[in-house]
């Protein structure tokens, strides 16, 4: 498959871009933030995602979705990143749909249609420590009657305080740190013993710290096989990683675009600052880095869609590279804007904040560089 967008994919981009620029531009984020909105995103907007067929991009057609792939999801996410649109798309339409895709028919029928229509919001509850480390699952699921009883805590559960569905990685056997013995559960909102403490993050989004105290779920809530959730968890996270990489390309791309505009307009010392060669060379270097990150992300998405075993390595590469390239974009963006780049009034700082969260989400550059080393046996 050629490593550029097909005509259909370009059409999707041409639809999603204007939709988000119109419905959820940066102003929309500012409004939610300044109103201290408790959800952190608009449910109405999410339903609109459903109407446009975006929420169900990865949902099979049989469940009312588009039956498309991670390349298409990445196209939407890049536009989300470009507009800093607050939405549960990444956790719900990408990560949760991938997880539920590994579940039995009943769970799939239970959750996928609602996601496709934009009614349902899902969240991923994996992290327990400060830094992403998915084998480090201590939250215990013990057999109890027909089902399981969950005890423990999760943090950095993006949208967890309002999610209808939680994808929970729990330990059913083996020790903390081991890949074996992890089981995925689909836990519904309002389960007894489940509490969420919403925390405002640096980018104004909300992630919850979640406490599980004797939360009872029945056996039907198990996604996939008991004790054997690692590979589906990895696939779920990789979907999230490639998605986050795509969103960071949007973040970095927009940061670069507004910075280039500034270089073409702002004068200092009687010249347009874009005429200064030192800035030109840095801008050209940034362009190269973003282009390379874009290629890596598209490649990873294509490999995911092809179920290629190399997808895991490339997902790590994409997340690490997009994280670094977009970081350069927001850093150079603020620096080249000078003082006004430091003000809340200008958007560039919002891009820097959003990048920070996405960089950490599902593992940062250091995490994935380490993964690249391990996957290559060194």
């Amino acid at each position, binding site marked *: 498959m050629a490593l550029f967008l097909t005509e259909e994919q370009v059409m999707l981009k041409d639809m999603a871009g204007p939709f988000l620029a119109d419905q959820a531009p940066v102003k929309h984020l500012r409004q939610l933030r300044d109103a201290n909105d408790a959800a952190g995103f608009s449910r109405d907007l999410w339903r609109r995602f459903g109407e446009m067929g975006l929420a169900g991009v990865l949902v099979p057609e049989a469940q009312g979705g588009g039956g498309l792939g991670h390349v298409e999801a990445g196209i939407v996410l890049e536009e989300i990143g470009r507009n800093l649109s607050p939405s549960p798309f990444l956790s719900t339409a990408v990560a949760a749909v991938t997880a539920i895709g590994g579940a039995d028919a009943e769970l799939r029928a239970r959750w996928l249609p609602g996601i496709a229509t934009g009614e349902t919001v899902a969240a991923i509850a994996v992290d327990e420590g400060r830094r992403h480390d998915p084998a480090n699952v201590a939250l215990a699921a013990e057999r109890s009657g027909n089902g399981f009883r969950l005890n423990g805590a999760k943090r*950095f559960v993006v949208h967890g305080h309002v999610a209808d569905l939680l994808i929970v990685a729990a330990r059913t056997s083996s020790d903390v740190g081991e890949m074996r013995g992890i089981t995925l559960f689909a836990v519904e909102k309002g389960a007894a013993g489940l509490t969420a403490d919403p925390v405002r993050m*640096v980018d104004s989004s909300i992630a919850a710290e979640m406490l599980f105290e004797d939360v009872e779920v029945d056996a039907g809530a198990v996604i996939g096989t008991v004790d054997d959730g690692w590979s589906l968890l990895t696939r779920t996270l990789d979907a999230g990683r490639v998605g986050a990489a795509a969103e960071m390309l949007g973040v970095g791309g927009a940061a670069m675009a507004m910075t280039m505009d500034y270089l073409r307009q702002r004068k200092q010392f009687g010249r347009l600052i874009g005429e200064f060669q030192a800035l030109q060379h840095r801008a050209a270097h940034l362009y190269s880095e973003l282009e390379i990150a874009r290629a890596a992300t598209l490649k990873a998405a294509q490999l995911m869609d092809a179920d290629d075993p190399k997808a895991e390595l490339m997902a790590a590469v994409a997340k690490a590279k997009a994280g670094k390239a977009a970081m350069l974009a927001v850093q150079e963006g603020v620096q080249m804007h000078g*003082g006004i780049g430091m*003000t809340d009034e200008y958007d560039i700082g919002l891009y820097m904040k959003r990048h920070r969260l996405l960089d950490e989400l599902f593992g940062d550059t*250091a995490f994935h560089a380490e993964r690249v080393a391990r996957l290559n046996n060194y």
Partner: protein
Amino acid sequence: MADEEIFRAETRAWLEANCPPAMREPVTGLDDVYWGGRNGRFSSPEQQAWFEAMAARGWTVPDWPKDYGGGGLSPSETKILREEMAALGCRSPLHSFGIWMLGPALLKFGTEEQKRRYLPDIAQGRIRWCQGYSEPGAGSDLAGLQTRAEDKGDHWLVNGQKIWTSYADKADWIFCLVRTDPAQKQGGISFLLFDMASPGVSTRPILLISGSSPFCETFFDDVKVPKEQIVGAVNQGWTVAKYLLGHEREMISAMGFGSGDPSLGRDLAERLGAFANPVLRAEVALHDVDMLAFRAMSEKFLDEFKAGLAHPAQPSMMKYAGTELNKRRLELEMAAGGTDALVWGDDNAVSRHWLRSKANSIEGGTSEIQLGIIAKHILNLPGA
């Protein structure tokens, strides 16, 4: 015992007797320090006692002459005082742009009358100063500034707008660059002092990405400034400003590195536990190499500076390298802090410090400006 050793022993004894234990703890934030001024408030009785004890000796400005409210210490005595304060962990008793910036400029360029009028108030923290350099259309390019001061015989009439005025909303007076000759560039600028309570002065705080507002937009609408409140000759303000910018650069480059743990990695490991990720640990170790080397540089620069051996443009190098390193340090603190660090949190949250650090390489002359100065004045590259 040599005189210096006697002075050291006496100083230490005095500090131990007069610096309250609470004033030997690290500062927890910018609001935890005393800035003085007409509206200055002490955050604790200990803070007040410490300030007053130091101010009574003139040790808020130990090396200024006694005639101007200073401590009258020699350079070596000043160094001993600083060393003993550092050894005990004593806080600075007074934060002040008057001390850091205006004072040195007045000592060099002020008239005898100006020195006697302004310096004691600075030393005693009675007047809080702010700096009016940048303008909306002239960030790094001060030569393009447009705030006008017209000669109206017995006064200057000031009109215009400043930006990035630190704490202008809290300051009593401003030292300000104004254009007194529109036909010239650097040559048409003068350095004025005036009261922020003068009619026609207004300020508007600027909300930063870090969530704080240390800077203001400041507007001058027919502000009358007495003729004698000019430092240096008319149209010679650029000379004063350049001298002062050098001081600012030194201050900023020294800021991030005077205190704190000498090893970021050690500090992080003690606070957060051993590094689980080898790549992050390696990045921190490489940072620590650069940071420890820069500490040696800071020491060398100060030693050379005091001995008159430093290249006049060396502060640009210090400012450039120090601020870039501090930004890198905070990126690593964010990475090590993980999701904890992503919390918006209070003013002292690491996320706020991280965002604040991005201004380091912009304020007081951008990194690009500093590199240009190095290229021109140290490397003598053509056309720089």
